[in-house]
């Protein structure tokens, strides 16, 4: 049974126990109200935690490690983009840097969120914070950062100039983050759309430049978009969550390969 299935099973047990408890109680029992409220709170807390973690139990911690790796790769790309901005002094490189930095921050946040659950820290935190659920808060923050990052990259890659159009796109992201209920599904559907359009744009660049580096970038974003499909299909089969992460690892690996080729470019010229 996957992690989501395990927690759902726990909730079903809790609900059955609660119903059994209700049947045994008499309405005039003075402790009834207090126990009822506590039982509801426990169910709510358990239900909320389901939103934050996915996939099979054995993949615990591995997804956090993968996410840290993705965060490091995107941070490296962001740092180089900043270097490009310092040299060229063009704003688009600054926004490009910001896009990758947002993605890096998003990956760090979700990795932290998952690690806190796996290490069992969350139970204590949820109790201390009362109604505030830190797990969901970090998950929503992750969604917001990732979508913002994708948007920035898309705006730069597609060379969007109209400020109103850019403002509209950002407004959609903020509205989605603030007023959604099926976070997981909608996040991955929107990510799939954004990454697919980016992959399309980078494919056009590859057709024009016909270089290995542009090919690596196109392939990377193609893999990242494909990974989103597996994350969506995870609902039917938890193992696909692992496949999605593997595709993301491949995607970011290709991006890192492109970066290393760029870095080694000058060393090759020197040797000649």
């Amino acid at each position, binding site marked *: 049974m996957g992690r989501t299935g395990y927690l759902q099973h726990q909730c079903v047990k809790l609900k059955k126990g609660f119903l059994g408890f209700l049947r045994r109680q008499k309405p005039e029992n003075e402790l009834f109200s207090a126990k009822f409220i506590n039982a509801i709170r426990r169910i709510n807390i358990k239900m909320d935690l389901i939103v934050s973690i996915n996939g099979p139990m054995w993949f615990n911690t591995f997804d956090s490690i993968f996410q840290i790796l993705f965060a490091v790769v995107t941070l490296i790309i962001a740092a*180089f*983009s900043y*270097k*490009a901005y310092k*040299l*060229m*002094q063009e704003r*688009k*490189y600054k926004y*490009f840097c910001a896009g990758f930095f947002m993605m890096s921050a998003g990956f760090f946040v979700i990795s932290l969120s998952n690690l806190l659950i796996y290490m069992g820290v969350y139970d204590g935190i949820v109790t201390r914070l009362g109604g505030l659920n830190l797990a969901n808060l970090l998950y929503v923050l992750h969604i917001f950062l990732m979508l913002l990052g994708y948007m920035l990259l898309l705006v*730069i*890659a597609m*060379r969007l100039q109209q400020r109103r159009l850019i403002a509209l796109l950002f407004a959609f992201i903020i509205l989605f983050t603030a007023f959604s209920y099926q976070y997981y599904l909608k996040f991955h559907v929107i990510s799939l759309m954004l990454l697919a359009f980016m992959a399309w*744009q*980078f494919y*056009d*660049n590859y057709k*024009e*430049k016909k*270089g290995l*580096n*542009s090919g*690596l*970038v196109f392939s990377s974003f193609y893999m990242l978009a494909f990974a989103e499909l597996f994350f969506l299909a995870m609902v039917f089969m938890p193992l696909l969550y692992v496949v999605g992460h593997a595709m993301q690892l491949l995607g970011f690996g290709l991006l890192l390969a*492109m*970066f290393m*080729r*760029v*870095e080694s*470019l*000058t060393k090759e*010229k020197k040797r000649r």
Partner: protein
Amino acid sequence: MAERRNRLEIIYDILKSIQDKRNMMIKPTHLLYKSNLSHDGMKRYIDELKAGNMIAETEDPKTKNKMFTLTEKGCKFLEEFNKVKAFTDSFGI
């Protein structure tokens, strides 16, 4: 018609022209042709690059002609520019 070059691209073209020459030394006339600038324009850039210590004026030991050569800083600039160009071309930005 080709896009108009920005300032940085012009500097890159000048430095690259010098780097591509034997011993990284070039005559002013050759540099004028390679950089595709007017005489006044080239003079402005040369003065800027000399002030920035990216190029240096020297003499050909055989012909005693005035030559321009690339400094260490100029070489480093070319390196960095090439990397950034390759990176941005990969994304098409």
